[in-house]
């Protein structure tokens, strides 16, 4: 799989959610590790430029970050770090406040990073910040595919819907992946996808240019509430390494399998 991939470009997947605190960074890291375990070359780009915490999740203390790349202090190559789980990361660090606005510099830098690194990996995951700010929307626009992470909470569903609406109307997204995190029981993900699709069909599709394909939500995964998740985050370990075989790990692995069949 990886040798055929060496001639082509990575699939760039943006992980976004609207609402913060739904497990975006946790999911990006564990999905990346699962993809790596399937033999894929994976890079996670921490695009939460204002309040990054991929380093915290992965228990890394980076000496070089995107900040140094942006200022030209180091080469892009030198900022790519190995992460536990067998994938690579580009960390933002938490001091990138001056880059949390979408300046032409941030645009050009992020575009250059993706263009430079896409030929070297099979998957690039862009971990975006919360919200639907222009930095988040720009980061998503760099990706081939977008994954919206949602939990069964009404606030999360509302923000996920707002994100989907903006992506469909402003960026012309027609296929959007949905992963439902923290489900109480398996099957709840399908219900939530169904609800979101219903509202999209009713309110978003009529806003689109006539004759265009309607946006569809694809349920790529559902991950159950699992006490191991909290424990892994507390211990700053990857769930799939700390608790192989637990319900959430199996669900994340099933999700990765859909991303990399």
């Amino acid at each position, binding site marked *: 799989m990886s040798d055929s991939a060496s001639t082509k470009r990575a699939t760039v997947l943006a992980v976004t959610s609207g609402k913060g605190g739904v497990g975006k960074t946790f999911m990006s890291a564990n999905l990346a590790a699962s993809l790596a375990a399937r033999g894929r070359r994976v890079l996670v780009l921490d695009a939460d430029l204002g309040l990054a915490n991929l380093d915290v999740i992965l228990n890394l203390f980076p000496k070089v970050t995107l900040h140094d790349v942006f200022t030209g202090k180091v080469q892009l190559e030198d900022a790519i770090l190995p992460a536990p789980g067998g994938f690579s990361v580009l960390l933002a660090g938490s001091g990138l406040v001056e880059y949390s606005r979408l300046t032409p510099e941030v645009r050009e830098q992020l575009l250059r990073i993706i263009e430079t690194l896409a030929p070297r990996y099979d998957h690039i995951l862009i971990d975006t910040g919360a919200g639907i700010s222009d930095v988040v929307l720009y980061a998503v626009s*760099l990706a081939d595919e977008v994954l919206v992470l949602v939990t069964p909470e009404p*606030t999360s569903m509302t923000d996920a*819907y707002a994100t989907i*609406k903006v992506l469909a109307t402003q*960026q012309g997204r027609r296929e959007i992946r949905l992963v439902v995190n923290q489900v109480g029981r398996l099957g709840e993900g399908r219900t939530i996808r169904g*609800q979101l699709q219903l509202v999209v069909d009713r309110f978003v599709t009529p806003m689109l240019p006539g004759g265009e394909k309607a946006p569809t939500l694809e349920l790529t995964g559902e991950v159950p509430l699992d006490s191991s998740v909290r424990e892994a985050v507390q211990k700053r370990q990857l769930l799939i390494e700390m608790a192989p075989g637990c319900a959430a790990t199996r669900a994340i692995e099933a999700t990765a399998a859909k991303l990399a069949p």
Partner: protein
Amino acid sequence: MHPSQPDTADSPTLRLAPAMQLLQQSGRELPDRRAVGQVVWLQAVLDGLCELSSRDPLTGLANRREFELVLASEIDRVARAGEPALMLMIDIDHFKSINDTHGHPVGDLVLKAVAQTLKECIRPMDKVARFGGEEFAMILPNCPPSFGQAVAERVRKKVESCSVTIAPGQQVGVTVSLGGAFAPQWVRSSAPLWIDRADQQLYRAKTEGRNRACLEQPTVSLVSAEEKGLLFGTSKFADLP
């Protein structure tokens, strides 16, 4: 290259007559005949043909083909630089009734007059094109959103203020409706989506009575109570979190 030689199977020659005819008909100065067959001459012919294929013959404005090229490069520029760019779709009001009342030659006069007026409205960096029929399109790079309405309004007033002389002593007034949308600020934005957004605003300007300019309002990310109601499977909007 020996365009003057007869065509044989061994040495195929260029058939230039149709091209030269088109160039001649357009009123362009023809490339210097003394250089026939030389690269510099051929380049001049190609330049002439490119120019022809990017212009609207009636109004002399850029045609839709040229406009779409400009659009693509503007989308790329906006994605990289993040500068705002405004697209205006401009449609002559009641054009059909001008044609029906005064005949097609007068319709052509009106099209030319409006085209000339639009040309006078733009900065050197802007582009105005005849998009098709009585519809024109404009791209204004680096136009701040706060100026959009004023810019569109200025174009509208300028057209409204000039009348078209259709016969000695006989003039007709003409107005336009305008729809505007700012460029998508993202990578992978599509030109058809941008055009469609401006078109939707043009439609709004038409239905709201014509001779007006409507620009897209940035309200799309709001989630209404109705949408929330459907999302949570209830119609009691007031009770929602």
